[in-house]
């Protein structure tokens, strides 16, 4: 029953964007029929924004979204978020809670009561320890401002401190509940209007070798038909270590020059296969026939000066090259 959502002024990275607002229908089409909700639209929009050259999500490199699971506790709707998929290497920069709030008009005061200022709803965030039947530790109670009628409004609140504290305490199950302050139905929003959490993070492990496979490769491509169990893909750098260790005593890892008895006749130098203008002048000149001594004496300084002025590359030491060739 709602038209295109309006985004709050919270730090959700959307307001003030220069991008045109994508239509949810177009955006979620890429996600398939099972994911047509606002979190999918939001993530696609962030993807478009941060796919631009040089753009980074909030100075980090990762944005995780978390959908809620709806529970009913004491006849109240409670949304539970499982944040355990965050990796240890992901340093949380910002976390935002996104929710859809109906206008106050939908929650009229009971008949007979004096009409006063409407009660401000509160968002209650709790962290839930694993396997605990308790309500959990109250992490935050955020006062909300319902939008004016007639439409509801998507809003976002910064919950960075809540998520960081919950992570520090190892309680990565968060519950969100709206305390409306009156007899309104609360935060229960089916389907496309369900709340969600975005966590902006900087993954310190993303610069490690093969980080893309750690997160995106979910099977061993060599597993088929191979009875030998293999280590998880990129789970460790053991293969690399073993290979290096196996060759550690080999000659290529010896930093000493081989002895004289190992020396052989110089290999055939690879002839030039490129046009003159493509080449570095130094090495090429070193292996070319050199002009006679007299010519060099006559033209040398001028040639050298001209060469040094025009060349933008290293001038290889010809004497060194000659000595090397003699040896």
């Amino acid at each position, binding site marked *: 029953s709602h038209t295109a959502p309006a985004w709050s002024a919270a730090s959700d990275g959307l307001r003030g964007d220069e991008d045109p607002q994508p239509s949810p229908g177009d955006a979620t089409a890429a996600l398939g029929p099972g994911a047509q909700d606002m979190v999918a639209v939001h993530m*696609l929009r962030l993807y478009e924004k941060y796919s631009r050259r040089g753009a980074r999500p909030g100075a980090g490199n990762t944005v995780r979204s978390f959908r809620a699971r709806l529970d009913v506790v004491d006849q109240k709707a409670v949304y539970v978020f499982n944040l355990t998929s965050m990796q240890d290497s992901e340093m949380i920069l910002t976390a935002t809670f996104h929710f859809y709030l109906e206008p106050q008009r939908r929650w009229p005061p009971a008949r007979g009561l004096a009409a006063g200022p409407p009660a401000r709803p509160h968002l209650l965030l709790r962290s839930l320890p694993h396997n605990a039947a308790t309500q959990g530790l109250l992490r935050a109670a955020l006062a909300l401002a319902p939008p004016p009628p007639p439409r509801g409004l998507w809003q976002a609140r910064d919950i960075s401190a809540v998520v960081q504290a919950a992570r520090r305490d190892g309680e990565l199950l968060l519950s969100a509940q709206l305390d409306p302050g009156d007899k309104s139905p609360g935060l229960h929003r089916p389907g496309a209007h369900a709340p969600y959490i975005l966590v902006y993070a900087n993954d310190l492990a993303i610069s490690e070798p093969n980080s*893309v496979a750690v997160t995106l490769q979910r099977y061993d491509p060599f597993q088929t038909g191979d009875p030998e169990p293999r280590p998880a893909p990129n789970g460790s750098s053991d293969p690399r270590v073993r290979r290096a260790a196996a060759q550690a005593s080999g000659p290529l890892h010896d930093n000493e020059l081989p002895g004289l008895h190992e020396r052989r006749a110089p290999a055939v130098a690879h002839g030039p296969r490129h046009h003159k203008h493509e080449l570095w002048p130094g*090495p090429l000149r070193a292996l070319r026939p050199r002009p006679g001594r007299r010519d060099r004496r006559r033209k040398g300084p001028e040639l050298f000066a001209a060469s040094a002025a025009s060349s933008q590359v290293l001038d290889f030491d010809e004497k060194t090259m000659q000595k090397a060739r003699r040896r």
Partner: protein
Amino acid sequence: QWDEPRVCSRRYLKVDFADIGWNEWIISPKAFDAYYCAGACEFPMPKVVRPSNHATIQSIVRAVGVVPGVPGPCCVPDKMSSLGVLFLDESRNVVLKVYPNMSVETCACR
């Protein structure tokens, strides 16, 4: 790509995530231009392969043959660019990660 130069250079490679079996969880992009580096780093190396000083020396040492077993420098990515990937994690939550060094911009002999 038989017509491409034999010298070290960037070659076109488009990677479709479906080809490597990652398309089930990668939402976007479906494919990207990864490129790759291939070709020889033989003496004398042209400017276009942008050899490091070390590669230049190694190339000369190999050409002279004074030290046996020294290979020519390798044709490898020099400048690379990042790629944002939108995917579903194993809890089916949507994740965006910007991976560095996913696409080759230039190659060099190193």
